[in-house]
């Protein structure tokens, strides 16, 4: 991970070299598709998503992040459905009063697979794509530079906001404010924390906007870009494939409604 670049991990693999636009297009498709296709397809997509992360040379950090991000969610989806699926009869395992049922697993596992594949694809995307490249690429495709600026500066400013919040909390604790323990004590700490945080952020925003003005931000000139984000033939083909894949989704829905796809 590099400072200021969110979750990006340095690398030069195939996925790293792709233009962010086709990657984003395919990511969106990959998150939506498992919910469109019948449940069983979700497992296939999950395997593909994990393979993609590994092929992208994201390796261990990718798997670790995937585990951290999905373990709790997946476990709770499987446990709740597996043990508490309403009306389920086919008991696979009895733990005291709790019964793990086949119906529950059949319902829960595909949901878990969909969630995990969406997380895996998102991770593969954010770990292989610099946020500034993504924004430059989107601007190149017609997005507003102002929009890009807001998103990017938010990514870089979050750690600084957290720092500020912890400084404020330190300052107020030093003034005798109890922040530990009972709920009431914690609730009392909200105003002394949020007050300086909001006012301080407004002061920062004012200063920052003046500084941006001094750097001709928002000038009427046609903006140029210092970072070049190349778009190659492979990327163009991937965009075409992405379009086709999106076009296929309504067909899948129609097919499922007509009973042709199960």
């Amino acid at each position, binding site marked *: 991970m590099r400072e200021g670049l969110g979750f990006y991990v340095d690398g030069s693999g195939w996925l790293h070299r792709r233009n962010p636009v086709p990657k984003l297009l395919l990511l969106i498709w990959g998150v939506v598709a498992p919910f469109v296709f019948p449940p069983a397809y979700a497992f296939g997509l999950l395997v593909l998503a994990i393979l993609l992360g590994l092929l992208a040379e994201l390796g261990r950090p990718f798997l670790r992040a995937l585990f951290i991000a999905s373990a709790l969610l997946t476990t709770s989806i499987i446990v709740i459905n597996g043990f508490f699926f309403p009306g389920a009869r086919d008991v696979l395992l009895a733990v005291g009063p709790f019964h793990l049922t086949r119906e529950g697993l059949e319902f829960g596992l595909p949901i878990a697979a969909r969630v995990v594949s969406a997380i895996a694809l998102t991770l593969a995307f954010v770990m292989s794509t610099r946020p*500034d490249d993504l924004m430059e690429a989107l601007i190149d495709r017609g997005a507003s530079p102002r929009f890009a600026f807001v998103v990017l500066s938010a990514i870089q400013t979050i750690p600084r906001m957290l720092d500020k919040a912890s400084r404020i909390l330190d300052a107020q604790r*030093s*003034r005798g404010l109890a922040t530990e323990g009972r709920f009431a004590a914690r609730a009392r700490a909200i105003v002394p924390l949020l*007050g300086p945080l909001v*006012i301080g952020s407004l002061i*920062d925003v004012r200063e920052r906007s003046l500084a941006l003005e001094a*750097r001709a931000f928002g000038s009427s000139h046609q903006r*140029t870009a*210092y970072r*070049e984000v190349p778009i190659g033939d492979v990327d163009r083909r991937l965009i075409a494939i992405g379009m086709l894949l999106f076009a296929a989704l309504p067909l899948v829905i129609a097919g499922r409604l007509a009973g042709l796809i199960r």
Partner: protein
Amino acid sequence: MASIPVESGAGPGLAISSLTVHYFGRDTPALSDVSVDVRPGALVGVAGRNGAGKSTLALAAAGLIPRVVRARLEGTVTADGVPLGTSEGVASHVGIVFPNPHNQISATKATVREELAFGLENLGVARADMERRIEAIAARLGLSELLDRYPFALSGGEQQRVAIGSVVALGGRVLVLDEPTGQLDPAGTETVRDLLLTQAEDGTAVLCAEHSDVVLATADRVLVLDAGRSVGIATPRVALSGQALAASGLEPPTIIRLAELAGLGVDDPLDDEHIADALAGAAVGPDRRPTDGDDRSATDLGGRFAVRDGALLEIADLRYRYPTGIDAVRGVDLRVEPGERVAIVGQNGSGKTTLVKHINGLLRPSTGRVSLAGRDLSTIKVHEAARTIGFVFQNPDDQLFNRSVERELAFGPRNLAFSSERSAQLIDAALSAAQLQGVRSDNPYDLGYSDRKLVALASVLAMDPAILVLDEPTTGQDGPGVAQVGAIVDGLSAIGRTVIAITHDMEFAARHFGRIVVMRQGEVVADGTPEAVFAPGQEELLASTGLRPPLAARIGAKLGLGSTPTVDALLDALAVADAVVKPD
């Protein structure tokens, strides 16, 4: 909005003529009829108390009023002959740099190189041209080694240099700065000062609002503002003299006082050598003896706060490693007796703040022990420790949230469950110690930055601490503000309280603190009286942590007078030397 007529024949550089700025909703104008010309190659300083109009002048000079900051503007401002104020695209004629280094980073770029490109992108400069301009600017401004660094990871001084570089890169020949060194350590201040001199030598017109005499003394001319009006513009030696400043509430900086005392010619360069030479030849008898800085003596707190002994503070082999793996404090031993005044100095990142955060338990030692009156602090919660230890943070805006100064002061005593009678008494005492009685019902955020700093300090004083810890109490303060803080430090010490302050201001440290602790890379490298720490021969050690002895000490060392950390000490030594050389 005022229209600014195109001044025909307005020359190169910055020309401000009869400028009046009136913010909406304010009774009095922020600036009245101010004129100043900055020719290419000149560095013009702007001095004045906080609230005198320096920032407003900077904003107007950079063409941000009224286009971005709404106000009524009369008069003319031109940069390189181009009228500013209403027209867009002034960024390619004039650049402005603000006090807070962090807030000037675009927060969208991963390297300094790209940060420098930010403005060029906005101006639509072709990519090949950008690369060339970035390289040229970096080489000229000494930023080449920083080009591939992450902007937020730089030190304050480095960030300010990048901020200067990123506006200079736009090609303007006029550079305006609003207190660019206010939040920097001494080494950072000097690098920025040097950069401004380089810019001026290269033919840029530089206008710099400042409190620091490090910058002001090197200016070609200094404009002094008082309550929005121009007091005058002259060389620093004349503009900042006691006589010229008499009406403005400012005191001459030490360098000017010594120059006056030494009878240094008005056209002589203002540097250590010339002042030392002139002082050596001048007779500094008791009759010519000025007061040291200002007449403010210790604020008498005895009648308002109880005389109370500070508690013994002991730090033994303290080490602290941040979760990121950085060893910020590496084995510090420190024993602070009740009633001591201790200044902790050292460059940014030397571990000063990390160290003092252990004094009230905000941080727990990785190893080692911190104890207060014999009790191990690791067993005491921060809000409990607040009964004994007051802690004032550097940025007042990290603390203030109430709608009146009085309520702000009441927050601490209420947390400590003081009786309403005691609270009321302490609030009055703290208000008068900080001379804030006149604004007790005001909203803190309607006050200027230096008053907000005093409110934050008073809000901790109202908790009646035995030990007061101050983190950079003088940053952003003007001369009288610094003197006010100094008087409070002296006053607290007189009633037995302990004061520990982190500071970058060596003169402040030498004058108000009996003990100086010098930190470098997480360790204490010197600890002693100002006379010992700022003694001749210590320069190298101090420089290794970004510091320089105060001016009086440097002059004393040059003249072979021994250790003279304050102006008083220097004058005493001079008087003794005089008496020896010329016995009556």
